[in-house]
């Protein structure tokens, strides 16, 4: 029995080498790191070298983002093929790797499928080891940046964002200095507000009626302009006094508007009605009224204003002065709420 086992062992020894020799002669695989140790985070090369002869096809693995969990692949270079001096084919591929885990890491055998002469096999790479050192902690010093903060170049838009406010401030300052200089030159205080006096409607109306009477329009044959001005003055007064939209209303609408706001003086209402009616005939139908009518309607208008006026005082308001008028500021100005238009017809 012992002899039988010895013979079988010899046979196994004699038979195995030729198979192993075929594979070893056909393809040879080697892997290695540039260095067997690195500092944590450093980058080194990982080289795969395959030498083969004859019709052999070896399939390289598809590299992912890690070799093993602790070793990351950063870059995979294309495979390089070259012929060796002894006529074999040398295929190499370089990878750039790094590791952020300190300790000793082993890359296990990597399978490379092999196909030669109708036979399929798998070639395994040898085991490669890599020692990763971490930085030594210096507890004696305070925590500090490994690298200083990077300073980005300043852009024009960043400069403009600040510069425009500075520019605006300077312009305002220049404007204030200019106004101050103007005021100093004129030797009077700078005032930014002007007093305006808003006259009550009856004051404006009575003054305009007096002016119209003084112009003697109808006496000079200008009947139509006379009635146009007369009715415009009364309409403006009604607008100011009663809030009736008289300038944009017809005679009928004005009279109706007066009734709506509670005007109930039948005598004055009748006088107004006759005046508007006559004015419409003069303005739109070329009628020439009797001269006494012209005076009568003027007196009626004055009576209407005097009877219906409110005993109100001129109103004073302060209003901002435009920059152009700054020189005249400080003067009291009298204005009227609504100025009758000079129709001239």
């Amino acid at each position, binding site marked *: 029995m012992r002899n039988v086992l010895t013979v079988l062992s010899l046979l196994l020894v004699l038979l195995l080498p030729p198979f192993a020799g075929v594979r070893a002669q056909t393809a040879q695989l080697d892997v290695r790191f540039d260095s067997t140790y690195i500092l944590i985070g450093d980058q080194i090369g990982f080289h795969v070298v395959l030498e083969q002869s004859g019709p052999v096809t070896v399939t390289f693995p598809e590299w992912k983002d890690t070799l093993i969990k602790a070793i990351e692949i950063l870059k995979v270079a294309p495979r390089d093929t070259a012929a060796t001096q002894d006529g074999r084919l040398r295929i190499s591929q370089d990878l750039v790797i790094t590791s952020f885990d300190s300790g000793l890491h082993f890359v296990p055998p990597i399978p490379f499928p092999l196909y030669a002469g109708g036979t399929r096999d798998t070639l395994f790479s040898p085991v490669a080891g890599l020692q990763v050192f971490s930085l030594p902690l210096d507890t004696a010093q305070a925590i500090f940046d490994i690298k200083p903060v990077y300073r980005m170049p300043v852009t024009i838009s960043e400069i403009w964002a600040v510069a425009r406010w500075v520019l605006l401030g300077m312009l305002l300052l220049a404007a204030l200095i200019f106004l101050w200089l103007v005021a100093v030159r004129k030797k009077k205080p700078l005032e930014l507000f002007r007093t305006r006096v808003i006259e009550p409607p009856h004051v404006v109306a009575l003054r305009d009626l007096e002016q119209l009477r003084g112009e003697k329009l109808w006496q000079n044959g200008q009947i139509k302009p006379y009635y*146009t001005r007369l009715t415009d003055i009364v309409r403006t007064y009604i607008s100011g006094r009663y809030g009736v939209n008289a300038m*944009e209303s017809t*005679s009928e609408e004005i009279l109706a508007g007066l009734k709506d706001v509670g005007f109930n003086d039948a005598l004055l209402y009748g006088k107004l009605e006759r005046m508007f009616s006559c004015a*419409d005939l003069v303005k*739109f*139908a*070329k009628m020439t009224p009797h001269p006494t009518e012209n005076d009568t309607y003027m007196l009626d208008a004055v009576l209407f204003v005097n009877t219906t006026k409110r005993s109100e005082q001129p109103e004073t308001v302060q209003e901002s002065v435009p920059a152009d008028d700054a020189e005249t500021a400080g003067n009291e100005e009298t204005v009227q709420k609504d100025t009758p*238009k000079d129709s001239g017809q």
Partner: protein
Amino acid sequence: MNETVNIRELNEHIQAESSFVDILNMEMGKVIVGQKHLTESLLIGLLSDGHILLEGVPGLAKTLAIKTLADTVKASFSRIQFTPDLLPADLIGTMVYSQKDESFVVKKGPVFANFVLADEINRSPAKVQSALLEAMQEKQVTIGAQTFALDQPFLVLATQNPIEQEGTYPLPEAQVDRFMLKVVIDYPQKEEERLIIRQNLAAEFPKAETVLAPEDILRAREVVRQVYMDEKIERYILDLIFATRYPQEYKLEKLQPMISYGGSPRAGICMAKAAKAYAFIKRRGYVIPEDVRAVCYDVLRHRIGLTYEAEAENMTTVDIITEILNMVEVP
């Protein structure tokens, strides 16, 4: 002074010539209860040679009013119901072959009448509308190689229903502009409607008598032309029309984005004519601002284009006209 005398004479002349207005109103009042604005508008159209587009929901006596107006005038009247399958030849006429004469003879259509009622004009396609509107504008019709002048007075009164838009052909803006007035009719008052019901329940429906001849209308039109319109009124009309085009120039900036287009020059002409006719109806020989304001809505209503913004804000042309009337200064 002469001018004054002329106006006074004209006023008296117009007062005499316009006396038929009261009789006409009385006759129309026998049949039409209320709807004073409608009858006034029909008279304005009749006297100023302008066609009228009536808009209102069914049953407001649009057709009856026009028929009654035709009855009061000794004139021919025809009614055309516009339908989607109506053809221009059905309206203006066509050439038919006469076997007796062995030749083509003209068969005139219903448009050959003094008063033409185009009922529901927006029910027919554009080619039929165009045929009618061409007759309205030119006052003549061409059939084959022959052109026929239409009898005078020639007045088209078209109706359209604002509530049914399905299967209708809305009149294009250019064609709507040819109508002098667009009158919108509203429901009658309660008391008026009571009278209408009573009138319709009576054994005999009242009928208007013929009180005018076509010649009377033509003569009245001549008189209407003589109604005096002062330069101030002309300027007022122009201000109103220009305010629809350039509202910002009349302190109506807020209306600018609401109006896509304003009144055409035809709007100004129509407003002046209608104002004169209104003054005539009121038996005056001169136009006053009240006359212009009275016809302003009917003249401008269909001549102002609204933008999407206006429609989004539920603003109508009536609102725009009201704003304009409230802002434009009256002479």
